[in-house]
């Protein structure tokens, strides 16, 4: 229960810290940390406008997107703090819950009948497809390394005690940071601040959403950031630490992660669209190296 509350709590501030840091770096006046929350509250007060061409799918998609992100948060442990739900192989369920939400958003974008939104949906589906093997190979390798297949047991037994385990930890954090960036359509693949529909990926998909629906989509994106931050923190927090240290470390890592995203977005140029696939496949390549490392540690590959 505590882990869920922590994730929800940190999600409130996550995007606020990013935009604050970006404003600071660009020497603009900094908005308050809770500015995204105020924006969403304003959106919730408004009604939604629906185009005549849309069907029921367009109306339920934001709800399903939000619900899938929220349910995915239930599976996320933090250190030795138990998640609300946990079963064997729940990381597959977790990944496909997030994929379900994304799938509904893609359907909704197609539902509007706009050419731009179809194009954005196409790109988003392609990038998600490329990033999926990276996630599964990575978590699969960690599962092989710790010999457990549920999130809670897997991270509880993830002990960084040898040099090779450090490689697994560092490479996993690196890959997960960029998976989070791709899944949330942030800088190196997509620019959330772009104003040209032709170059948008995620933003063009939600052009037709307004009011309440748009608010839900924003909240889901905070939640997804916070969930991935929790996933990253699990690689660093050890189950043997004291309870309050784990919570402090979690909050610290979330803060560091949001600052990393802010710095990356301020200084990194956006990839050319044609370079995106190769940039994303590199995450899978590094995951395969992690997999080979796990094979060496568990003596599945015997070298002398």
């Amino acid at each position, binding site marked *: 229960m505590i882990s869920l509350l922590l994730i929800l709590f940190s999600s409130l501030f996550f995007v606020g810290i990013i935009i604050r840091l970006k404003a600071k770096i660009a020497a603009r006046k900094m908005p308050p940390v809770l500015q995204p929350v105020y924006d969403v509250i304003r959106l919730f007060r408004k009604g939604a406008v629906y185009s005549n061409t849309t069907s029921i799918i367009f109306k339920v998609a934001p709800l399903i997107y939000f619900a899938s992100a929220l349910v995915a948060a239930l599976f996320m442990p933090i250190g030795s703090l138990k998640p609300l739900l946990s079963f064997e192989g729940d990381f597959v369920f977790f990944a496909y819950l997030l994929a379900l939400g994304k799938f509904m958003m893609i359907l909704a974008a197609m539902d509007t009948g706009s050419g731009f939104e179809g194009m954005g949906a196409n790109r988003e589906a392609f990038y998600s497809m490329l990033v999926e093997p990276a996630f599964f190979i990575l978590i699969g390798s960690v599962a092989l390394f710790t010999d457990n297949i549920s999130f809670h047991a897997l991270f509880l037994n993830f002990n960084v005690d040898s040099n090779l385990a450090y*490689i697994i930890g560092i490479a996993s954090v690196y890959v997960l940071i960029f998976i989070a960036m791709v899944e949330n359509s942030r800088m190196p693949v997509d620019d959330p601040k772009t104003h040209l529909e032709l170059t948008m990926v995620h933003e063009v998909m939600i052009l037709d959403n307004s009011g309440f629906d748009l608010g839900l989509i924003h909240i889901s994106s905070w939640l997804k950031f916070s969930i991935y931050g929790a996933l990253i923190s699990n690689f660093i927090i050890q189950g043997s630490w004291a309870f309050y240290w784990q919570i402090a470390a979690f909050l610290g890592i979330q803060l560091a992660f949001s600052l990393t995203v802010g710095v990356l977005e301020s200084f990194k140029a956006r990839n050319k669209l044609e370079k995106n696939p190769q940039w994303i496949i590199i995450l899978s390549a590094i995951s395969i190296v992690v997999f080979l*490392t796990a094979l060496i540690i568990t003596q599945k*590959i015997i070298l*002398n």
Partner: protein
Amino acid sequence: MTYLFIILYAITLIYFALSERVKKFVWLLSIQGVILFGIVFFSLNEIEIFDFIFILAETILVKTIIVPWFINKVRKRNNLKRIHEPSVPVFYSIIVVVISLLISFLVSNHLQSNYIHTKYFTVSFASILFGIYFIIIHKNIFSHVVGYLIIENGIFLLSLAVGSEMPMMVNMAILLDVLMGVLVLGVFINRIGNTFESTRIEQLSNLKD
């Protein structure tokens, strides 16, 4: 500790496949030199002290500093373009390098021999395969030199794999070979650059006597 550097070496191979900028090639070669230094430092401590120091000096001086510095000079002198487009899309190159890594790890798993240290064999085999592939996909003579140096790093690892008691003479010969190769190719690139004002190899097929 050796495994750590071996895995890092595998990661540099992946970044070789990803990068398209010439300057990055030079950096990656330099990083590979440091990694080879680490591998030698943590694994070859039962050989004679003079040989040990010589091999360490070879990796840190020649592979990390002199060769990258020299080819960087060649790059600047010939005003090479920042980006060399390979003839195969980078997407496929990354898949190729990953497959070659997987194959070489699997092959070394089956090579149960007392004479071969399979832990070095893994990345050395992948490095040689990838170096050849790197030469094939690039149309630029400068990148061919880089590919040659990748192969050479693989051969260095292979020499560690077949026994840590490698004769001094062989070591000296390989070192001399590499240095001469890079120097000659550097001069060659400079001459081509002066004559054709480009380093693309298509120019060479127009030569007639």
